[in-house]
């Protein structure tokens, strides 16, 4: 099994973040959804460019981290750089769901599924 942390890249993590070890903003947690607001420009740090390409559709922080093969904390630093420069937007999935539920006009599928429905599905599957 190839570990994500295997040391076969000359990049050290502190050079990726420029020596920082904590994100400037606290806006990100593991499931924060990130959407890029612009395309990568030449000369950009490769990780930033990769994030921008990856996040054309909303992508969770943890997915970005797995995709880049970097620790989540490092990714958060990179993301907060991008957030500061306005290249990405971030939002929390729960707030989205809550907002959707609160609005009657929203399609039903936008709501987070009700736990009881999920339970019923589970039971149904088991009964097959």
């Amino acid at each position: 099994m190839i570990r994500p942390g295997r040391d076969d890249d000359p990049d050290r993590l502190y050079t990726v973040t420029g020596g920082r070890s904590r994100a400037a903003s606290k806006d990100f947690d593991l499931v924060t959804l990130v959407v890029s607001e612009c395309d990568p420009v030449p000369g950009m740090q490769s990780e930033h460019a990769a994030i921008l390409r990856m996040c054309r559709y909303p992508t969770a922080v943890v997915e970005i981290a797995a995709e880049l093969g970097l620790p989540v904390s490092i990714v958060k630093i990179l993301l907060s750089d991008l957030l500061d420069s306005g290249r990405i937007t971030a939002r929390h999935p729960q707030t989205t769901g809550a907002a959707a539920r609160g609005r009657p006009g929203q399609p039903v599928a936008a709501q987070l599924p009700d736990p009881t429905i999920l339970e019923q599905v589970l039971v149904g599957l088991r009964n097959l």
Partner: protein
Amino acid sequence: MTAHTAPARPWTERPPLRRPLLALLVSVTVTGAAGLWAVWAAPESFRQPMAYGAGATALVLCLVLTMAVHQREKVRRYRRRTAYLADQSRKLAEEVVPDLLARLRGGASADSALAATPPLENESYQRVVEQLARAIGQSESRRAAALAASANAAGRMQALATSMLADLRDMEHRHSDEEVLADLLHLDHRTAQAGRLADSIAVLTGARSGRRWAKPIVMESILRGAMGRIAGYQRVRLHSTTGIAVAGHAAEGVMHGLAELLDNACNFSPPTAEVHVYVEEVPAGAIITVEDSGLVMSDVALRRAEKAVSPEAAADLAGLSGTRLGLAVVGRLARKHGLTVSFRPSARGGTGALMMIPQDLISRPQDREDPPARAATAGATGTGGFSATSATHATPAPAPSRRGRRTAAAGGEAPWTDGTDGEGAWPAESWPAAATGRGRGGAEPAATPDHAPAAPAAGPAPTRASADAGAGAGSGPDDPDTLGIPRYSPGGLPKRRRGQTLAAAHSAGQSGSPTPAPSPARTLSPAESAARFGAFRRAVQGQDRGQDGSGSRPAPDRSASSSPSHPEDDA
């Protein structure tokens, strides 16, 4: 060893007496005859004094003549001896000693070097040579032993530093606490610097150079790898848009040499000044420029530095000062890899160091430009598209895969990757995209029936993806017709794109396309639904089969994974 040559030494023989004796004989005969004749010819009264006189004269004459001959012989002998000695001295200086030194420097012991040297006939010369051989042999063996010990120690230090760096990276991935991470990064930095020192000693002592990279390293990584090894890396500003990569066998050397140049630049500029690094591609290769705004090197200093990094100087450790190892290391590395290093005054007010990497060490990954077009080509031709694909297969390491997926993400117009392999869970007829022959790699991380794992959150799936992505250099091209339009599984269930919120997916589905939608699903016969759940089960089991890289993977649909991947893509 001198015994057999003794007869050949002219000055050790007794002076030859033959000629003086001959001269004596001749003179005695001649003077005797002349004396006798004179006595016989003299009048009777004068005969006796005449005899005495003639005898004395003859005696003196004989003596003088003999002495003269003898002296002449002696002079001749001394002349010969002088010439011989001069010849021996010349031989000693021009042949014997240089040969001896060469043999000793070549690693021969004093005795074997002496045995191989033709012996000198002059005993004192021979003694000189022997003493010389012993002294130099001793110092050479002392030097060699010290060098070997240092090289060995440096090699171990290198190995330790490398494994520590790997451990640290593991830990950095394990510990998400920011405090711990900060400490780990600090340790990482220190270890990298220690590793550089070990590398320097290894280079100077001629040990095998540090680690070798199995793949070309992109320039950005080279630059970051170099700046990560110096103390003041935060002052370094990188300006590079190039996509070139340095061959794996030379990457470590280039990084190390560059790190030494960067270290010099940081050490000889004010602690707050920035050091700028530029990369420029030229026909002969690539030039990395390190510019500081510190001390301006004088002409003499520039010349000295140039000399220090020139290949000739690099061969010898004699010019090594105790504290300045950097330029000597750069010189060694430049000699080894054919780099050219030069210095010039910088426009920033300090010194600029230029390192030219020759063309044969440089590769240009073709994956940077226009990924969608390339991906389409790859899909159309049905081949891997380019060599890097096979390279990725050959080195299933996380980094190439990561970069590969990054590339794929660039061709992100392939959101629906329907590549199914032969034994996938889904019948081929249901996948128009699959019918185009994509996913022949069979190991696409993206070859995922969307609903199969019920998208098991973000936990295990990404890990699995990164684990198998090395083998997942699948070649699925983009699927333009699906761009932004929801796809439906054979069963009529809408497919959610990875990361796409349900809201977005649903609304798009309602507005975007004709929907076979949920309704057919409700009207399925029991047999059909049983078949579908059977497919579901197979898909779930495929998770296990996927371990060997052949099954379809129930991982979340990854938009990024369908394009051919490139280890070198750093964008």
